[in-house]
């Protein structure tokens, strides 16, 4: 039975990764799961300098999901390279670094610094809905996405995955722009912009007023967008959005994702990632699937 998948020339032992921002750099969850069992760890977004993020409250629970407006708090690339990359190198898993920035130059600085490190792949965050500058501003207009993708591709030494926002009118237009600009793959979906109001206090549940919705509540939206994107482009798609079980993950694979990522459910059940890895194998055994690649995009 083969569970390996190859994305932009990088071989993952299985198609299960972590969604950026839900797993740190793996340190906190290494208490719960053996990181060696994961296909890859996708890190929390890292910028050229430390970002302090948004005021609290930053999180709020919603029906079957949650809103967050962390605001990409991160220690900056220098601390990240000294601490987080060596930590992840101890494990037999692929390292995918999520890169964020306020300007294209910020992204390029991080991408260049990561060029000579042991990082396997870059995921470019052009879809965070919770910061005022950068991030989603680059990911909601096809021409902006094309521009930043091509400039990053010109400097990057690792394969580049563009992480797309669902907060757009036509996801296929964005997927095609990333592909045309030379992206090696795309990942989707980031969170859906949402809002919650505390009716007892008559105030917003989040200090940022709006936040990104994640968790099982968004899964059908994510599956639909992965399906649409996978049919619009030839580059590989990494699918995510509300994955809680192996069955959810298989749904994304069938819709056209070459790999999947577990996000908010890490917060709910810290063992979700490894349960999904093992559950996909169980599914393959049950249905006599020899190679996980046979599942990818097989529901047309």
């Amino acid at each position, binding site marked *: 039975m083969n569970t390996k998948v190859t994305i932009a020339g990088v071989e993952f032992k299985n198609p299960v990764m972590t969604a950026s921002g839900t797993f740190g750099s793996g340190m906190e969850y290494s*208490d719960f799961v053996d990181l060696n069992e994961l296909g890859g760890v996708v890190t929390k977004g890292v910028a050229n300098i430390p970002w302090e*993020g948004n005021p609290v*409250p930053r999180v709020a629970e919603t029906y079957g999901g949650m809103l967050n407006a962390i605001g990409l*708090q991160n220690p900056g690339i220098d601390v990240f390279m000294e601490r987080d990359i060596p930590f992840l190198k101890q494990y037999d898993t692929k390292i995918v670094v999520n890169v964020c920035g306020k300007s294209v130059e910020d992204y390029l600085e991080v991408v260049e610094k990561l060029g000579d490190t042991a990082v396997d792949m870059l995921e470019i965050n052009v879809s965070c809905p919770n910061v005022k500058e950068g991030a989603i501003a680059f990911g909601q207009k096809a021409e902006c996405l094309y521009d930043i993708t091509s400039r990053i591709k010109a400097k990057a030494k690792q394969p580049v995955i563009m992480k797309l926002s669902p907060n757009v009118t036509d996801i296929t237009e964005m997927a095609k722009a990333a592909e045309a600009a030379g992206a090696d793959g795309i990942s989707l979906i980031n969170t859906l912009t949402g809002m919650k109001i505390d009716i007892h206090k008559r105030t917003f549940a989040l200090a940022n007023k709006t936040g990104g919705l994640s968790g099982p509540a968004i899964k059908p939206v994510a599956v639909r967008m992965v399906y649409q994107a996978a049919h619009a482009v030839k580059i590989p798609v990494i699918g995510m959005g509300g994955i809680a079980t192996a069955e959810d993950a298989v749904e994304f694979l069938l819709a056209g994702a070459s790999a999947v990522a577990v996000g908010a*459910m890490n*917060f709910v059940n*810290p063992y979700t990632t490894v349960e999904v890895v093992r559950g996909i194998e169980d599914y393959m055994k049950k249905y006599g699937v020899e190679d996980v690649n046979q599942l990818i995009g097989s529901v047309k």
Partner: protein
Amino acid sequence: MSGKKKTGAIVLSQRMIAPDIYDMWLKTELAAKAAAGQFVGVYPGDKSHLLPRPISICEVDRQRSALRLVYRIAGAGTGEFASWQPGQETALLGVLGNGFPVKENAHRKAVLLGGGIGIPPMLELAKELKEQGAEVTIVIGYRDDKLFLKEDLEQYGRVFVATEDGSVGVKGNVLDVLAKEDICPEVMMACGPMPMLRAIKRYAQEKEITAYISLEERMACGVGACLGCVCKTTHKDHHSHVNNARICTDGPVFDAREVDI
């Protein structure tokens, strides 16, 4: 490895001890390592409510392998917990957070201050301090005469009560008790609403003593990964280097001098 895990638990007993305040004992292996000031995440059974609810540990019974949680109904999740009967199976995430520094302060005259639903963690703290031979004074503040945990606390130290409406004890807050009863703490350990903790931080600064305060914030993961529950710190935090400590892992207990509240 910190030994954190998500694990099963069984409700041993449950009763209401004041309006909307419940007292629940749970059988769980987490009792083996739990300490004063730490907390656990309690999972609602209703799967539309996904996140574990952070609840402070009120008491640890290692012999029975049980934890006592005293909590207030704050929404649908805790509302569901209050309906649980003995035998109910649930799950806990824990043990989470750093806890109070007990051994380091056993030789000092410790004053514990609890306000409202910040009172429960004072019980295990008073118990552990007494076990270490410390002289413990406990000051607890309530809104009105609906007191809870007072008799439990009296086993471990001298207890003074403040009520906002003056119906029991000193009319006012926990700091009013210190003035009225002429209590001079060498170290303070506190949990309660933010205005109370701010006042304790100022008091400790003026008296040049150490105050350990337990903070609360909306949290998601409980293990330091999501960066949801941060508080401003006076120095660069070791995780993100931006003066934001994670309440769930760097706290919930902080030296009041270290946080900007």
